[in-house]
């Protein structure tokens, strides 16, 4: 398959991720959109790795997946803490910081 297919798919995924982060108001969905952005980059790494016949990209993906998992742990903990305090996690209602 030509390289442009992979790049195209990855760009579409990345754009969907950005739109999701900017438009959705539920932090869990925002979270999924962030993962989509990370995974679009992963797809690009793997595709370029195969295209250039070097292994760096494939290796990079493992690092990215691990850090993404670490981030998820922290993020979910934060969401749970906020839900405990105010019984909602809607981003539009996070307005205690204003100035």
């Amino acid at each position: 398959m030509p390289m442009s297919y992979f790049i195209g798919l990855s760009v579409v995924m990345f754009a969907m991720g950005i739109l999701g982060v900017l438009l959705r108001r539920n932090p869990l969905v925002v979270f999924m959109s962030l993962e989509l952005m990370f995974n679009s980059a992963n797809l690009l790494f793997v595709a370029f790795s195969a295209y250039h016949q070097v292994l760096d990209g494939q290796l990079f993906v493992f690092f990215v997946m691990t850090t993404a998992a670490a981030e998820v742990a922290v993020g979910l903990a934060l969401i749970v803490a906020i839900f405990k305090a105010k019984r909602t996690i809607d981003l539009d209602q996070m307005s205690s910081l204003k100035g």
Partner: protein
Amino acid sequence: MTQADFFSILPIITILLWALALLVADLWIPKERKSMTALLAAVGLAVGVGISLSQVGQTALTFKGMLMLDNFAVFLNIIFLVSGILAIALSYDYLKRMGIERGEYYVLMMFSIAGMMLLTQAYNLIVVFLAIEFLSIPLYILAGFARPRLESEEAALKYFLLGTFSSGFLLYGIALIFGATKSTGLEGIMASLSANEANLVLFIAGASLMLVGFGFKVAVAPFHEWAPDVYQGSPTPASAFMAVSVKAAGFAVLLRIFLTAFPTLAQQLMPVVWGVAALTMVVGNVLAINQTNLKRLLAYSSIAHAGYLMMAFVSASNPAQTGQAVSAMLYYLVAYGLTTFGAWAVVVSLEQAEGKGLELEDYAGVGQKYPWLGAAMLVFMLSLSGIPLTIGFWGKFFLFRTTVEAGFTSLALVGLFTSLVSVFYYLRVVVYMFMRPGEPRVRRDGWLSLVAVGAAVAVVLLSVLPSRLLDMAAQAVLRLQ
């Protein structure tokens, strides 16, 4: 791992192992004696400073070209370690007073510092990404450390979502650069660029996305929105730590990547960076005018200062001025860091529980009742606005000089005018402290006063000998090019 590899990251290893050991040791430290943990963490950082000092003058590319040890990295590593020690001094009493004293706080701070140190030494984009995550993730937790205060939790979530968002841009940029140049190491990228093998469209797209990612991290306009909210909601010493060291780390890696690996690109992207610098200076200073909450005011001030630092980045794109611009930037970082820590120390000593004591009105009468504290704050405000006899003046002086010499006079003028605007809101704090009657409540704590008065003395004394520090900064960049 060879011996050279090992010694090049000895400070990082020390800090990490110390932090891990502290995490375990903290289990046996009883709850009412958590200040032990703070002390041990500070000792660990001090040991790190000692080892870093022994690395001065060494230059080594280690781990098969993954990490670079040079004076530039050592200079910044020492900044991070010292700012960590100062942040611990600010936290020592604050955490107790706010009832959020837990040993993990100090450990997380040490982890974050280890990440920053790795970042300044990174010579491969994989390491850059990992180090950025390594320094950010502990900071997300630190921002939410005042749990269950809702402001702190919301600040943490905001910081987390936007931080991860920016990491996404950074990562995608790295992927495109890998695609364009077949390599993630800075040496490989340079080789591919100079041999004209790189796909320039992918490369420029990748570099721009990386710039966006870093822009979020160092909070330059138009990516600055999160900073005031996060700095306001986080525990105050953690905000001070973020305002100084994260900014320094972000600018360090920006310089390392864009000036060493993408030198031709730095010139092409210059108009964009010019605009970002000017916009950041204007936005930061103008929005600060209306702030009455001191934490938010200092947050906008830190955005404005990111704009000034960006100015050095613009002038560095002129090859004849690169060395001077980078040393001016390092000098400015030291000046800004010292002054900012002092100002945050004053804020910490006035802050009361539940986020009280942070408004301008609460500062009325501080000058009369606590002359030392008032005098210290006066020095910091003068230094932040760049008035002579303070280190902040020399920081701006060197910065504006190199910008004019690099041929960006109009940008220097923007900097000058926005500095004049900043005088207004900095001096307003002083006016409240000295000319309005009031009954301020100030927390007396030895470490806090030491940081505030010590920083004030240093700000004035270093301004008498500006060239010594500049020479050190100049030596630090000697090897960068």
